[in-house]
């Protein structure tokens, strides 16, 4: 399955005030979440072109761009670890490979420059809470730099395997 779920064990209080311990739940793999969100972002831009009335697709695109940016920023081990996680799924033939190809292309087209659609849209997301234009520009640059680095690392890894 593309989402490569991981199991997390939860404990705590439920809304009904029951104390529960060691309850397993499946959570999407972060690397896969970034890739899936990249495809979702492009899909929303495409839908907006078809149906430009209203803002709903652009709002969703901003949400996806923001999630991508946050996942990239917080990924443990930074872009080196993310590239390491993606590479085997990307380079080994399998059902995920074409989707990962598409997702990386979405990142390349929409996120690898600070003025591309992704970084521009992400600062419009309500959760961002950045009022200052300079802060927005810095955030856009940081996101595009991370994407550039990720793609460069993946390209290097691919070259090394050829």
């Amino acid at each position, binding site marked *: 399955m593309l989402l490569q779920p*991981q*199991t*997390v064990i939860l404990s705590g209080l439920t809304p*009904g005030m029951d104390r529960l311990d060691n309850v397993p739940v499946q959570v999407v793999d972060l690397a896969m979440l970034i890739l899936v969100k990249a495809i979702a972002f492009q899909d929303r831009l495409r839908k907006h072109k078809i149906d430009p009335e209203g803002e709903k697709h652009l709002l969703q695109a901003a949400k996806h761009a923001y999630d991508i940016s*946050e996942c990239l920023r917080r990924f443990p081990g930074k872009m080196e670890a993310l590239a390491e996680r993606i590479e085997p799924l990307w380079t080994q033939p399998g059902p995920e490979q074409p989707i990962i190809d598409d997702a990386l292309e979405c990142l390349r087209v929409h996120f690898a420059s600070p003025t591309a659609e992704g970084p521009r849209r992400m600062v419009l997301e309500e*959760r961002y809470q950045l009022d200052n234009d300079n802060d927005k520009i810095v955030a856009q640059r940081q996101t595009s730099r991370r994407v550039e680095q990720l793609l460069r690392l993946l390209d290097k890894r691919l070259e090394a395997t050829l």
Partner: protein
Amino acid sequence: MNQEDEQPQWAEPDAKPDLLRAIEAVVLELANILSDYRDAFVISGGLALHLLFPQRETHRQAGTPNEAEEEPEPFERLTKDVDLILNVLMLDAMFDDKMPAIGELLMENHYQQEPRRHHWIRIVNLPGFVKPVAVPVEFLAPGRFAPNSADSAVLARMSALQDVEPALSVE
């Protein structure tokens, strides 16, 4: 790949914002009441970041001083809801009319279905809350089940049997 990955305990409840406590409580409750369907849904969105790496978000109440070197992450910047991606094929295949449907389990446990039918709301009011918190829960299904697709009938059947109508995502 399915890694068993025990996570560190969350911070003491009193040190967390109400929204975070409410969302954690809802995730725990969903994992428990939907345990028969455990392998057929995956938590997605910003909440995945918190569940996988909980130490990165703030556990302080707004307005209290932060002495950590790195500015903590306000939880509200991550997510305000719970997104669940359903494995439609698995749910369709595993349907058993002796088991309560997902929609039935949600209603029995005080989840209210919104007019946008893929959204449900759980009101949470734990001790110490300033006021009750409404936690939205959204069900999603892969885009391959879109209307007019070859698989759309599977989604329609699963939705009818399980009493949930997931929104389409692209996964």
